[in-house]
């Protein structure tokens, strides 16, 4: 009889423990890890500074590729402004991808900048272990260029 009562006590303790665990799991449930989220940002040099060129560099560890999820290309003019005809934002290690840019003189404005371009399906770098760069047009007297690469790295 004593053995039977002891067994029942152990069962009850286990049942309470399980119930407590189940409740704890429900209460602490989190959103899942998104393993192909763009978790890195390479911010370009000379960010939005007139009369300079901007270059963003996304580096990858050895053996891994850069997966680009988005690019940002800004081109904002100061109070004087300047026109620019048929210039390009270029890249390296992305199959030669580039983006065009022209603008009329538009003081204190950013017309025609490519802005943010998203890749719902990521763009994979050509070479593993090699950086991807995004380079603005050459320095323009009254335009501040900005470049940014949003990415993650993986095999």
């Amino acid at each position: 009889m004593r053995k039977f009562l002891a067994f029942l006590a152990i069962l009850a303790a286990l049942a309470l423990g399980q119930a407590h665990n189940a409740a704890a799991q429900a209460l602490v449930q989190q959103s899942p890890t998104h393993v192909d989220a763009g978790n890195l940002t390479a911010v370009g040099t000379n960010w939005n500074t007139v009369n300079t060129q901007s270059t963003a560099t996304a580096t990858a560890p050895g053996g891994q590729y850069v997966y680009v999820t988005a690019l940002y290309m800004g081109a904002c003019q100061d109070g004087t402004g300047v026109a620019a005809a048929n210039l390009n934002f270029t890249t390296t290690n992305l199959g030669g991808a580039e983006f065009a840019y022209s603008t009329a003189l538009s003081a204190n404005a950013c017309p025609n900048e490519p802005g943010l371009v998203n890749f719902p399906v990521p763009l994979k770098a050509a070479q593993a272990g090699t950086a991807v760069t995004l380079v603005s047009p050459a320095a323009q007297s009254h335009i501040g260029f900005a470049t940014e690469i949003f990415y993650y790295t993986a095999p």
Partner: protein
Amino acid sequence: MRKLRFLAASLLLAAFIAAGLSEGALAQALIQASPTRLDAATSVAVGTNWNTVASQSTATATPPAGQFVYVTALYMSACQNSSGSATANANFTTTGLGGMEFAYSAAAAEGCAGQPGLITFATPQKSAAAGTAVTLVSPASTTNTGYGTEIFYYTAP
């Protein structure tokens, strides 16, 4: 009494094992790395006469024999120089993609107004025939407009 001790020891051991497994699973989730993405865009076809006024641009994505082109994005630019040229109801056209095309009109003005820009496909667009190239073709040459065409893609069966 010995049976009861044996039962208690067994239950204690099972509890330790269960706790260990639970903690191990949590640790794995926290250190998980990004995997290889097999359907990432691995190639870019950059068009001819890129952003050069008075010329037409054509991008060509060529798959190996027996494989299709899966298009993840298209880029179409049309930037005018300081002289500018108005364009009315012109089109960027494609081949090998079911006749897909994109419209373009612009007033004469230095800038890139009216260009389609980057068009992305959350689900890739598969070419019509295996082993056949996909092309993206700008409107015909326009005096003061530089066209750019680009195909972002990968190839697979």
